[in-house]
């Protein structure tokens, strides 16, 4: 077999494509800042330059708060890694899982119910923690399997069912928690659920929270990021090295040939969606079980952004599990930069959201650029 040179490798191409997208987004974002500085009286060009540098600096542009912000950034990236993996695995099987927000909500709800219903006096907290995580993932698996089932058995487009299940989930969550004993009346924030730490349930931090802190204020970081990375590595192995992954990808590439080869494509579609659902839900569970988070339960009008952003990070990470880890961290990094921009310059938070949106928008081109590079290669031939 011939060895391909580094530049000819598909993976290298995809990494380059993703980096180019990010660069494009940054350039356009910078242009927006410059335009604003030109048309707004009290903002100078220098402010625009400072602005883009703050965004690019992410948590590091906050000076002495850098470690604290970095800790929170890593913590917040974990659920995004999971929803990204969820979308990526479905993509590889030829399915578009736009149902990650609903699966996320079902996971959050179920894990919270388990974590708060079993008193820590009855079972050791770590057992409850594990039960809650597993229950959350299971709920997500069931929720994800629904569109999978409709697709496999009745050939209904999974996107339609996914969007429906999203809104059903949003309303189920509100309905289940409405008036329940789990609402946090004590802090008069009745839009939120009681923190799991009140039941002594919190993800282990191994001292990371002290390491990533700003003075005496600890960040939220815990070991969930390691769980995310391990799951990503596991999925990478599953997709590329196992019989199961071979089947899933074959179904994704060519359903007819998979049928011809005797694969059970219906079972594979349902399984892929169940795994995708379990992943999105596990991300939500890990966020809730951190212990210090306020889960907003009246969700009937909104869907969690991390669910949809899973699509973005999956595309930016070229549907590769390891790529998803990096693209999720990057997205959260830019997000922190965005908030620092609003906090430290004359640009308001809408501008920072706009810039982030630009970068996200450009990341959609990642696949397109890979294709372009491939066809250029062909033309040279």
């Amino acid at each position, binding site marked *: 077999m011939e060895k391909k040179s580094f530049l000819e490798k598909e993976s290298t191409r995809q990494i380059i494509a993703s980096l180019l997208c990010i660069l494009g987004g940054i350039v356009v974002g910078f242009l927006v800042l410059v335009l604003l500085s030109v048309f707004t009286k009290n903002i100078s060009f220098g402010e625009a330059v400072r602005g883009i540098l703050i965004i690019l600096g992410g948590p590091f542009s906050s000076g002495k708060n850098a470690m604290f912000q970095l800790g929170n950034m890593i913590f917040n990236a974990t659920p995004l890694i999971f929803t990204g993996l969820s979308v990526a695995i479905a993509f590889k099987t030829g399915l578009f899982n736009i149902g990650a927000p609903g699966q996320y909500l079902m996971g959050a709800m179920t894990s919270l119910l388990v974590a708060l219903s079993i008193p820590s006096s009855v079972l050791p907290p770590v057992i409850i923690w594990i039960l809650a995580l597993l229950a959350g993932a299971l709920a997500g698996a069931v929720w994800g399997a629904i569109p999978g089932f409709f697709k496999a058995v009745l050939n209904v487009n999974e996107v339609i069912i996914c969007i429906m299940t999203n809104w059903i989930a949003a309303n189920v969550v509100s309905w289940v928690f409405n008036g329940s004993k789990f609402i946090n009346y004590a802090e008069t924030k009745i839009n939120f659920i009681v923190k799991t730490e009140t039941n002594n349930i919190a993800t282990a931090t191994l001292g990371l929270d002290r390491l990533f802190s700003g003075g005496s204020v600890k960040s939220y970081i815990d070991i969930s990021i390691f769980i995310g990375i391990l799951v990503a590595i596991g999925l990478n192995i599953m997709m590329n090295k196992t019989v199961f992954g071979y089947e899933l990808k074959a179904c994704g590439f060519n359903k007819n*040939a998979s049928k011809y080869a005797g694969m059970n494509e219906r079972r594979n579609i349902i399984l892929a969606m169940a795994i995708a659902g379990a992943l999105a839900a596990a991300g939500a569970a890990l966020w809730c079980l951190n212990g210090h988070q306020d889960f907003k339960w009246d969700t009937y009008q909104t869907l969690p952004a991390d669910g949809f952003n899973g699509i973005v990070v999956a595309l930016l990470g070229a549907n590769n599990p390891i790529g998803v880890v990096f693209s999720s961290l990057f997205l959260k990094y830019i997000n922190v930069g965005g908030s620092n921009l609003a906090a430290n310059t004359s640009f308001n938070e809408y501008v920072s959201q706009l810039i982030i949106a630009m970068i996200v928008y450009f990341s959609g081109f990642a696949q397109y650029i890979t294709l372009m590079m491939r066809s250029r290669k062909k033309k040279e031939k």
Partner: protein
Amino acid sequence: MDNLEAKTVNENTGNSEYIIELRNITKVFPGIIANDHINLQLRKGEIHALLGENGAGKSTLMSILFGLYQPEEGEILKNGKVVQINDPNDANALGIGMVHQHFKLVEVFTVLENIILGVETTKNGFLSLGEAKKKVMKLSENYGLNIDPDALVENITVGMQQRTEILKMLYRDNEILIFDEPTAVLTPQEIEELMSIMKGLAAEGKSILFISHKLNEIMEVADRCSVLRKGKYIGTVNIKDTTKEELSNMMVGRDVKFVVDKEPAKPGETVLSIHDMCVYDHIHKKDAVHNVSLDVRAGEIVCIAGIDGNGQSEFVFGLTGLEPISSGKVELLIDGKMEDITHKSIRFKNTHGLSHIPEDRHKHGLVLDYSLEENMVLQRYFEPEFQQNGFIKFNDIRTYSEKLIDEFDVRSGQGAITRARSMSGGNQQKAIIAREIDRKHNILIAVQPTRGLDVGAIEFIHKEIVAKRDEGRAVLLISLELDEVMNLSDRILVMYEGEIVGELDPKKTDIQELGLYMAGAKRQGKEG
């Protein structure tokens, strides 16, 4: 330096006996010289065949003439003058038209709309279809190109679609017509018709380049034939001074046998038995396959002949499990006794002795985005030979595929790791055949196994199939190629409109009789 001399002469006189001349055309792709100093001269009013194996460089050469590629070296002359062809528009302006192997027609437009697309006549900004229609109908009468100008392309036969493509070229007043493997998609009757159309066009003064690797057609219709082999120009011969054997020798570089050497069949016990099988066609609301019963015994090649679209595809889908059958029974010899497999899964059939070379290699035969080696184990990846504890043994897959690639001469850019998508059609087909023939099987169902292959490869595949028969396997061949049917089979069953209308012995029948059965003009009684 013949060429130089010729060039001076041409430039001095300003006209040439050749309407198109390609000189020293060289086109290099990384790692391969697709065209190596190729010369081709097309006379006015002749039918010039371009013959070569799969991947010999025929398509590349025609793409250069049509402006799709730029050559590294060489020049193109029209009527003795050097011309530059940068894109298909330039080619059109020079009167060069092409009928591609896969038609470029808008399905939801009518025949007339397709013909005038891009060169519409308008009056005050509105289409004036009336005049265009008159011109098209006149052309169609002159050249005997029977079409229905108001029919939608999606509703007409492949043959009429091809005539539409030809009219497209004539409507644009093209005088040099390139036909890229035009007969690949046609039924025998349509091929006959096309041959006479081509002769008519040439008689009217059109010059035709006819790309093909079917020697019979070239012998019938062409005046001269140029042969390419592995990117090199081998020579040009006058058809009336040559033979099929000479042409194939030029093309392949060795003698090719057209008649398959085989001993008389020694049929053993029945391996596959089909009773009254029906497959329902939900689109046309009738049985696509109606009450088909047949037996295939070990050590014989049974061929189902028929014109495309007479239920052969549906029959195979029903038999292999790709489509459900509405009634009937299928039995397969498993471990020495016949077992009912009618409602068994495809996986069960695959692992209990049924091999299937599918009709559509892109739809069913291959996962195009998988590598060649991954495709080689498409039905076997889960077997202990290739997996352990759920993990795929890639090293063993590599060894196994390389063995097959070697045995079956599957050519590709990067060997076992080549994406199936990037391989040529002929080699994709060879890969599938390698996989299916090598798999443990009692019955091999081969649907048009040599479609798109050149004579060298066809000879090889036929030998392999006969070898499998002699090993005691049963072979069920479904073919549209009459030569293949007559050559390879031990028994011929003719399928017409979803039914078996006759059983023939290839030694006692001829193509004419076979054709009558295929066209539905003759049929045997049930007992026949």
